[in-house]
């Protein structure tokens, strides 16, 4: 085929082919909803198809509207507890994923030569034959466990089944050790249960909401946003701890502009006040908790006066807010946040949050944390999976004892450095809906790891950076063009939701389920997929719970019977899933493994003079780096800004709108410049940006080169010894003043 196509041109090949392969968007089926209240205008035919959103992982159910067969709009499903009839900004813009002209269009196979260089268009058969053959040789040479899968999103279900059927349990996701791992493990250690997703937080009923760096309102997880709004409307007290005047902070009664990295000191001081002033729920603790004495002892010296110079929060403010929480308890929710991999001692910080909630008696209480129910929907039976000889745990058998899920960064590191676990080589990656170059810290290391692979398959909808490093790229159609497995998630009521295709797949793209069946057939794993196609698969699952595909096409979301009580009943005997069967204020498990049984504050490094701590978060308009090229959302925000306090900006002579490069403490300079936003809304000692920008893939034409990718300039990534989380906020940056407004790119 074409020799010497440089990496930059990689998907241009795809684009050329697309002209011939393009299929006009046609309406898949015509099933107006029974619950339809939507106008049929001027003789237009409006068709509604049920879906649940794949733009982020809240998975809101909604209706895809087509007008005369053309894409029109997406509206929330009124019956859905995730969306309550309203999508968020990104979900409303979901159609952009479908219409984006930069989408992947056809399978691609890497040509001979170095990775990340040359690709050619391939047929699906070629792609599958290639993958099946390579996997077979990996199995022969190293064993099936050498396949690791990375994933994010509900479309991954069948690929996960395929991986397990192949003989590997090395299934991981950056949404654990790069995201909510510390939180979930800390709550597991304390209450024996994780917070989960969607969070079991009862914001709807809370009387006092405490947000510690959780920026709901910019973090647009729909249910949380809607519930926070209702809390504001009910005039609940809101306390926000954030170095930045976040949207949530602007709605709060008290904004504690904490010095970043010192939250644990504040938490310990709060615990100190509550313990010293005996503001805790003594009855609740007596019945359900253990370790109060060790806790009291441990926090004796953590006075507000002690915390003040560390956190810069005034002692009276600490006392007053602690009392505010206690006054409203147990309907006080100290929100555990979600993305919690911050400083490397994150599980301990999250433990302090859990302890604080326990003291306030909010776990299992109205306005605190509720007990969710999950629908139980059997799947078509398949043979048991082969038992692997080893799993990801064997990659570092002595580390991260409390990791409850596979650590993506650990699997990556073991791939990069085979000497870490010589008997457990990782030789093939299957990456579904995860842009590892963006989501794992130290992208160089990720690329190094990839060089050691015999096979990298990337399943994606757009030419994300990870695709550029793959051997085979499998273009999936978007969630609007496919069936996926039912959405079955914990919530206030057991609900199921259907995602059905609203349109025929554009170009030569296919649903993951179809890909998996094709691969399984070639790999002799058909037995694990005892169903004809997705309609059959869904029909059988649905029939098992007294529904049908037909019914779900009409209603989209169904609430199943069997909801369990949301709250602990007064005096109820509860056994917690911890070794003691009680809420563990002092963790025996942690202490036994050589960690602090009660969290202890240790200071984190401080930025050297002229440097500022780089903190980051979410932009309401985007989900990570996955929507930056969505035409509707790109219009809202096409690049990220660097928030710089007015005083800091003055020191540097920075004006609003000026572009700068960022240099971190290791002298790494951002590839692209970022636009400065001079604002009072941030402390002078740190700077802020939203994650997900600065794309390096030219084929993402709208996103390429716009803004800076925080991941690229992370430094001093500390690994949480408890569970392997990778901390992202010990990065310090200084400004390199760009000469031109925007560099020629």
């Amino acid at each position, binding site marked *: 085929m074409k020799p010497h196509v440089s990496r930059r041109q990689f998907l241009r090949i795809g684009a050329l082919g697309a002209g011939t392969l393009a299929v006009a968007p046609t309406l898949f089926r015509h099933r107006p909803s029974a619950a339809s209240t939507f106008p049929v205008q001027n003789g237009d035919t409006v068709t509604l198809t049920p879906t649940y959103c794949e733009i982020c992982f809240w998975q809101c159910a909604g209706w895809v509207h087509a007008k005369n067969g053309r894409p029109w709009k997406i509206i929330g499903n009124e019956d859905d507890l995730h969306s309550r009839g309203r999508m968020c900004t990104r979900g409303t813009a979901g159609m952009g994923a479908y219409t984006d002209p930069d989408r992947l269009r056809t399978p691609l196979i890497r040509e001979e030569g170095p990775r990340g260089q040359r690709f050619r268009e391939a047929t699906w058969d070629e792609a599958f034959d290639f993958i099946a053959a390579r996997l077979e040789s990996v199995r022969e040479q190293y064993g099936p466990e050498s396949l690791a899968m990375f994933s994010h999103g509900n479309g991954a279900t069948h690929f996960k089944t395929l991986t397990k059927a192949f003989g590997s349990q090395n299934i991981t996701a950056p949404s654990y050790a790069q995201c909510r791992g510390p939180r979930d493990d800390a709550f597991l250690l304390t209450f024996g249960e994780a917070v989960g997703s969607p969070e079991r937080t009862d914001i709807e009923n809370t009387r006092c909401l405490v947000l510690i760096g959780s920026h709901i309102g910019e973090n647009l997880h729909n249910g949380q946003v809607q519930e926070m709004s209702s809390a504001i409307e009910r005039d609940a007290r809101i306390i926000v701890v954030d170095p930045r005047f976040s949207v949530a902070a602007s709605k709060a009664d008290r904004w504690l502009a904490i010095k970043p990295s010192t939250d644990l000191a504040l938490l310990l001081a709060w615990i100190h006040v509550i313990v010293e002033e005996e503001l805790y729920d003594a009855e609740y603790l007596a019945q359900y908790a253990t370790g109060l004495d060790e806790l009291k002892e441990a926090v004796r010296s953590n006075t507000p006066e002690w915390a003040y110079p560390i956190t810069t929060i005034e002692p009276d403010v600490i006392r007053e807010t602690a009392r505010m929480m206690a006054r409203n308890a147990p309907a006080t929710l100290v929100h555990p946040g979600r993305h919690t991999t911050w400083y490397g001692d994150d599980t301990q910080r999250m433990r302090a949050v859990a302890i604080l909630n326990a003291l306030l008696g909010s776990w299992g209480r109205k306005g605190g944390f509720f007990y969710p129910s999950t629908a139980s929907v059997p799947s078509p039976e398949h043979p048991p999976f082969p038992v692997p000889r080893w799993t990801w745990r064997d990659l570092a058998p002595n580390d991260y004892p409390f990791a409850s899920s596979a650590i993506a960064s650990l699997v990556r590191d073991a791939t990069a450095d085979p000497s870490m676990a010589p008997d457990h080589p990782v030789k093939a990656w299957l990456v579904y809906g995860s842009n590892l170059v963006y989501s794992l810290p130290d992208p160089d290391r990720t690329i190094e790891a990839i060089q050691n692979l015999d096979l990298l398959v990337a399943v994606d909808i757009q030419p994300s950076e990870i695709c550029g490093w793959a051997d085979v790229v499998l273009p999936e159609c978007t969630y609007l063009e496919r069936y996926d497995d039912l959405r079955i998630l914990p919530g206030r009521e057991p609900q199921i939701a259907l995602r059905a295709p609203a349109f025929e797949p554009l170009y030569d793209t296919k649903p993951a389920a179809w890909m998996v069946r094709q691969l399984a057939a070639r790999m002799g794993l058909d037995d694990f997929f005892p169903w004809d196609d997705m309609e059959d698969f869904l029909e059988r699952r649905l029939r098992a719970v007294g529904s049908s595909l037909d019914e779900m096409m009409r209603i989209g979301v169904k609430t199943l019977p069997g909801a369990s009580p949301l709250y602990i009943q007064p005096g109820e005997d509860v056994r917690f899933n911890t070794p003691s069967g009680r809420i563990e204020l002092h963790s025996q498990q942690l202490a036994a493994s050589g960690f602090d049984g009660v969290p202890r504050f240790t200071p984190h490094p401080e930025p050297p003079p002229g440097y500022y701590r780089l903190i980051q978060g979410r932009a309401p*308009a985007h989900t990570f780096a996955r929507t930056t090229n969505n035409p509707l959302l790109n*219009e*809202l*925000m096409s690049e990220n800004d660097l928030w710089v306090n*007015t005083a800091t900006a003055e020191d540097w002579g920075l004006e609003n709108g000026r572009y700068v490069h960022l240099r971190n403490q290791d002298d790494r300079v951002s590839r692209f410049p970022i636009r400065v936003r001079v*604002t*009072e*809304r941030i402390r002078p000692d740190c700077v802020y940006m939203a994650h997900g920008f600065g794309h390096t893939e030219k084929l993402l034409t709208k996103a390429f080169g716009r803004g800076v990718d925080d991941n690229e300039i992370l430094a001093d990534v500390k690994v949480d010894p408890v569970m392997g989380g990778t901390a992202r906020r010990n990065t310090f940056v200084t400004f390199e003043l760009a000469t031109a407004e925007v560099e020629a790119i």
Partner: protein
Amino acid sequence: MEELITTQKLNPHIDPVLHIWGWEVPVYLFLGGLAAGLLLLGAISVLRGEDGRPTAQRLLAAVTPLLALGMGALFLDLEHKVNVFRFYTAFVVTAPMSWGSWILLVAVPVNLLLVAATARSVWPGSMAGLEQRVPALGRLASFSEPRTRVLAWSSVVLAVAVGIYTGILLSAYGARPFWNTAILGPIFLVSGVSAAAGAIQLVSRSQGERRWFERLDVGLLVVEIVLIGLMLVTMLSGPLQTRQAATLVLGGPLTVAFWVLVLAIGLLLPLALETWQLRGARLPAFLAPLLVIAGSLIFRFFIVEAGQMTGWIAY
């Protein structure tokens, strides 16, 4: 400190600064003003019973072509040209643009009749020849001549209306503080007449006539400068939005454009040259009148631009 930013507001030509009108509208306003000035001066000349083929009367023939050119410029500015006829399927009392369209529609026939009424005295030779070839012209002239005074008076009224209209068109926009001042109408009228006086000087071959219009122009320029001064003063003593609008020329982005281009080159320089000439200095005859005309054009460009840069909302 107040920080005000918007998400998504990015409509072309609206954000971040209004820019809906480019060169077409100022050119239209200029040509309209010039035509109005010529109509006024020509009609006055007729009413004063001047003979000896005065240039002012000859230039009455330029009024309709100028108006047509102006309306052509306006047409070019329309975004939905197929609907141009809609100007004449409605009359909206509150819309100066509607008044303008209709006034112009009336001004054209009145001007043409006035030209017919004066043609035999202004162009005795050519008119005779023309009448032979197109007898209708003769009948038109004969029809108009007895009505000359009525036509001339109507022309005066229409000329003032058009001249003022070119200013009112802008000053009626309450949304644009830099325009929203009643003085703009008179300024535009004076500026139009001054440009017309300049045009007459350019074309006139009579020394006496040129002197006369030079003197008139000096007066008009002084009045115009005073009116512009007054405009700034009223703006500065007005509400917040107009005060802010005035800062556009008092240190703001249009400061140089205003003081150098509009005031110094467009008004003071021609004024100085003309006064100098009246005192006997010998300069190329076209210099001052050309500057007057250019000044009038620049002024309209400036005003149209400045108004669009001002508004009620700070983002």
